[in-house]
């Protein structure tokens, strides 16, 4: 009797946890259109770091430990998109002139060798 009640309780607890997670996903529209997912990610980025910082502060206050402050990450003034685009353009233009350049260098090398042999 007790084991039956306990297994029923366990099933209900598991079912409520799983159901709660499914409802959370449905309510926050995490599996919906892409703009809703992007908005959810932005909300998470705004909420999670301050919450983690406050939790860390609370733990420090309760335990008396002091977490060392990490230095701020360096800021790079590097535009990945522009350098990627210019890199692609450079690579493609190099590939397009590669055969003619190869012929030219081969001719020059051959002329050089002929002059050396004379």
């Amino acid at each position, binding site marked *: 009797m007790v084991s039956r009640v306990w297994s029923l309780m366990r099933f209900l607890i*598991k*079912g409520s*946890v*799983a159901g709660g*997670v*499914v409802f959370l*996903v449905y309510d926050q529209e*995490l*599996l919906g*259109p*892409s*703009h809703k*997912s*992007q908005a*959810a*990610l932005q909300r998470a980025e705004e909420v999670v770091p301050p919450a983690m910082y406050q939790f860390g502060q609370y733990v420090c206050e309760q335990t008396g430990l002091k977490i060392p402050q990490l230095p701020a990450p360096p800021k790079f003034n590097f535009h990945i*998109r522009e350098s990627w685009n210019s890199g692609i353009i450079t690579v493609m233009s190099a590939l397009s002139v590669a055969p003619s350049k190869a012929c030219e260098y081969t001719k020059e090398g051959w002329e050089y060798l002929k002059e050396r042999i004379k």
Partner: protein
Amino acid sequence: MSDSELGRKLDRCLADTVVKIGTGFGLGLVFSLTFFKRRMWPLAFGSGMGLGMAYSNCQHDFQAPYLLHGKYVKEQKQ
């Protein structure tokens, strides 16, 4: 499609992929722990579902400007 619009769509696709894979993984983790005795397949299934949904959304997002919408018009006999 302009460069900025393409960049915005790519950003949206990336964010959508991250959220959907994470959500699928999380759902798979919960179901694996609660009902499926800590097996690995719910995690793989959930992550795969999330990845597929994100891919489908991205595909629709990139193809949307070029899709033609038509309708049938019945011939009217005089």
